[in-house]
């Protein structure tokens, strides 16, 4: 090492001084970092289980997620008044029409924008749900005009179809990723990545339940993106493990893993950071339509970054225990 460096410095005579000094970089994670991630894997696994169970408990206690009309079927009218109108008044206005399962939700603090939902409608020509909601509001607030921002009506059949294809998509994505990694690396890494993905999806679902955010089609799209991101992150670490396994044939798998995670830690944090910042900006400024979409991605990316360090590799290690290291 030392020989090589001074040799190079001689060739580059005009910059000899600079070359001799060890390079310095502006770093968040110092290169000498050596956290023993593998040793604390059991603790992290317990923390993950606790998080998953809290999330599942929340879903169970609330009797399922807060499904948007994409999945539950029904009608949504999103409107904005010219002047502020009280929530209770809007609720009375809509309930006066005798619609089923009415939910009135204010958007923003101004009491001007509302999302009004009913569990009926969406199917058939004679469906009047959206019209009734508008009529009710118009009658109640005669001198306050409003503007329709959005109307969505989804029939029960479409809701069921969407639900099935959404579940299928997340599952297909997870399995496809697992297969790709199993081919590119080996079977255990594939399993590790798939388990990490499942972990991320479960914890993110729990967070959606706890925050009571709406679970609709865009949320599923966000979940799929989280799946892609989580695997992406896992792959980079796995790639380094593979490379280091070739170089260091004597070391145990645990040591190699730990080294690899530490070596790629800087990248993990920075890429995770920029991606999370981008989604945080969307969450902050993206508006009500993509609120739960942005939240799901932001939260999922955080969990995804965590899981590629603490979940994916330890799983490989657990699988390794029985079958002795081949490489």
């Amino acid at each position, binding site marked *: *090492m*030392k020989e*090589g460096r001074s040799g*190079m410095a001689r060739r*580059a005579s005009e*910059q000899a001084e*600079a*070359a001799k000094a060890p390079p310095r*970089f*502006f770093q968040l994670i110092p*290169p000498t970092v050596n956290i023993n991630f593998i040793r604390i894997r059991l603790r992290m696994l317990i923390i993950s289980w606790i998080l998953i169970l809290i999330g599942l408990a929340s879903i169970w206690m609330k009797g399922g997620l807060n499904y948007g009309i994409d999945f539950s079927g029904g009608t949504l009218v999103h409107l904005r008044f010219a002047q502020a109108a009280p929530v209770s008044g809007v609720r009375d206005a809509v309930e006066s029409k005798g619609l089923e399962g009415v939910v009135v939700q204010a958007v923003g603090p101004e009491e001007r924008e509302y999302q009004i939902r009913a569990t009926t409608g*969406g*199917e058939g*020509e004679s469906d009047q749900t*959206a019209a009734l909601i508008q009529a009710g509001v118009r009658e109640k607030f005669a001198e306050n005009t409003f503007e*329709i*921002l959005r*109307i*969505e*009506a*989804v029939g029960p059949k*479409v809701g069921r179809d969407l639900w099935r*294809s*959404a579940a*299928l*998509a997340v599952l*297909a994505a997870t399995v*496809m990723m697992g297969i790709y*990694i199993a081919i*590119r690396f080996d079977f255990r890494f594939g399993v590790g990545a798939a388990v990490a993905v499942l972990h991320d999806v479960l914890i993110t679902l729990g967070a959606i339940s706890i925050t009571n955010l709406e679970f609709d*089609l*865009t949320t*599923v*799209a966000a979940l*799929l*993106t989280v*799946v*892609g*991101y989580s695997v*992406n992150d896992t*792959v*980079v670490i796995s790639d380094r493990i593979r*490379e280091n396994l070739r170089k260091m044939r004597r070391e145990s798998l645990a040591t190699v893993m730990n080294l690899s995670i530490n070596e790629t830690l*800087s990248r993990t944090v*920075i*890429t995770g*950071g*920029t*991606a*999370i*910042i*981008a*989604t945080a*900006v*969307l969450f902050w*400024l*993206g508006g009500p*339509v*993509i609120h739960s*979409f942005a939240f799901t991605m932001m939260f999922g990316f955080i969990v995804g970054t965590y899981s590629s360090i603490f979940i994916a590799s330890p799983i490989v290690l657990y699988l390794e225990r029985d079958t002795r290291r081949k490489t």
Partner: protein
Amino acid sequence: MKATYRLVLALVFAAVSIVLLVPTLVQPAPEWWPWKQAIRLGLDLKGGTHLLYGVDVDAAVDATLDRLVTDVERVLREAQVGAATVERQGKTLTAKLANQDKRTQVADVMRQQLGAILVEQPAPDTGGLLVYGLTPPEVQRIRDNAREQALQIIRNRIDEFGVAEPVVQAQGSSEIVVQLPGIQDPQRAKSLIGRTALLEFKMVAQGPDAGTTDKPGPGIQVLYGRGPSGAREPYLIQRRTLMTGDVVTDARLSQGSITEGTAVDFTLDARGTKQFGDATRANVGRNLAIVLDGIVASAPTIREPITGGRGQITGRFTFEEAQDLANVLRNGALPAPLKLMEERTVGPSLGQDSIRRGLISIGIATIVTIVFMAIYYRGGGLIADVALVFNVLFLIGTFAAFGFTLSLPGLAGIALTIGMAVDANVLVLERIREELTAGKSARAAIDAGYERAWAAILDSNVTAFISGVILFQFGSGPIRGFAVTLCLGILTSLLTAVWGTRMIYDLMTTGRRVTTVSV
């Protein structure tokens, strides 16, 4: 390829992208500008209505069986196999023969004459019935036909309705998607598209046989229509249909002055003219009911035989109602009922709001990422930033070039791509740092950095791409926009963040001795 050539290529690409984007950014674009098409915006951004209809294709199959009843009767009559009664029962036709000895003969005749579409099915032992069902290919043909016809009819109706850039598309085996940009009140469009528009001419029942509305006589049904006061009014109507709307060749708003609303004039073809003439001649003085989708539009008294093949429908229509009625009569009845399954309407102000929010998010994500990279990786970060700007340019340019639709999730996808695109650069730059720390020269560290980071970059991008493709498969509308953005973003970021930055390093190091690299 030499770095300078690649530079030229990159600059050409960038120039092309800018040319493509001008119509989107500068509106209106100058006359002489070579590219006219602005980026297509999804309904969630420009506002409009998205409707999903299911075509009841099984109803079309039933209707075909009903029509076949008379065909079968004719075949049996011509074959002279004795008396037979034919009727539809569910998805089958049953023929009951008076003379059971003719059974095999009937089966033979049926096979010869209608074998292509009807196939004999096992009959119940009792009653000596012959049971026929449609052949599977025939059922499939009827279903496909019904969907295809419905699609065409809806397309014609929408075209005459007058919406800019409507989309009418088949989806799946029996669904039709209709997208109407800029429509804020979808009610009228919905009733125009969804109505079957089955026009029937029937006689109003008269005399003691007609019965009452509570207890109509045999062969009589109660249908409702709007009375003179506009209230719902029952009519006693004969079940037998004299004529249906398929003989209508044209329908226009009435030119004459009508006191009660607007009327619609219609013209009949030769067959219809004769049928109409015969029917009116036989029923002078009685009332003819014009029934549209089971509702009596009007029931005028026949004063004299109508032989000119022209008629008029009055029904206290508003101008718009009459306009839509003329439209649907001209374009014909749907072969099967449609069922609205999903509706999504976005108002124009929400669309504007979404565009604004999306652009601000993209702007902030870009600035934060660029500043961060420049501070953290200095020279290397700046090079990555240049690549990032090109990446965004190419990504949006691709949208313009291929006419992809940009949705709100698509805008979010661009913001996300900016956050993720630097990943390849981060991988390379971290690697270069490692190699430098290990004591390599600047040039060698750059080479090794790119070479060693490549496997990780490829694998991580392939997996992200797979999730994008699955997302595209699964999603519809706006979500597809997101999936397209993600996948395109991966491709353009590979191009710019890997080959693009490499090119810049090559340009910087070719022909001179480089001993330091700023990372």
